[in-house]
């Protein structure tokens, strides 16, 4: 992830992979939207980073896992970043809580000055 063009590539790849995993058209839109938001956060806040998309299996269910990782400034106050309406970039301020609602599972790890890793999963229905 380096530029806004990469944001489009990431969400297109995510849609392709999710499609292969058997997600419905409606789920594909949710997953692609979540990737778009996570990827934009990387470009916007960290400048660069990576998005890893893979499939996960757990107790007879299948899903997609997206890991968004950067070595950017990190998030000092995670509970604050997870509140609707909070933003430090003058953007819409609903990136992370919105992504959490789009997916089934959401984990965030961040250390100020070291970077941020967001992991999200969604299971096929």
């Amino acid at each position: 992830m380096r530029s806004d063009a990469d944001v489009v590539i990431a969400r297109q790849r995510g849609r392709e992979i999710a499609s292969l995993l058997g997600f419905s058209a409606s789920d594909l839109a949710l997953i692609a939207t979540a990737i778009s938001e996570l990827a934009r956060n990387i470009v916007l806040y960290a400048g660069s980073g990576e998005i890893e998309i893979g499939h996960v299996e757990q107790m007879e269910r299948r899903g997609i896992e997206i890991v968004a990782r950067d070595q950017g400034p990190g998030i000092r106050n995670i509970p604050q970043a997870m509140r609707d309406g909070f933003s430090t970039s003058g953007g819409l301020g609903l990136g992370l809580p919105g992504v959490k609602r789009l997916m089934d599972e959401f984990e965030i790890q961040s250390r100020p000055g070291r970077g941020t890793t967001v992991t999200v999963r969604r299971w096929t229905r």
Partner: protein
Amino acid sequence: MDVPVLKQGPFLIATIQAALNDADLNKLRRSLVEQVGRHRSRGVIVDVTSLDVLDSFAARTLRDIAHMTGFRGAETVIVGIHPDLAFAMVQLGLTLEGVATALDLEEGLAYLNERTRRLGATRPLPSTRAVAGRPIMAPAPRPGWPLAIARPPLVIPREEPRERRRAKPAPEGADPETRRDLP
């Protein structure tokens, strides 16, 4: 990737063809705001039928387009938001508050036609045009001419409505209602 913008009478129609990145969206916004002035458009339709994702940045840009063209006197309507995108937008918490939306291009055109009907089809061109019954601006008096002898505005005589003209020579007692249908 450039978004093709079609001029359709007093309206501009921008059809988003595929996945647009943020820079493309910014370019579209600038282009539409500028073209509204160039074509003196009354309305703008942004067709997002083919858009793969409508995320926070795209939603914000669409809102910007609607508000910016609004400042320039043109109304914007967003058409063709796919049901899956509508679902994802609600989950994400996005709104298009203050922005007109319509189901598809046809509904969007109907909406704009309705909204702009009172204003007339197009705006008058900047150059003077002869409009029956309305004075044409008199030319500015030449230097040295006293203002008092400046020419009065030229008025083109207004054409009388056809019915009334035809009704005039009608013999007394004739029913003008039936005469109106004559060729």
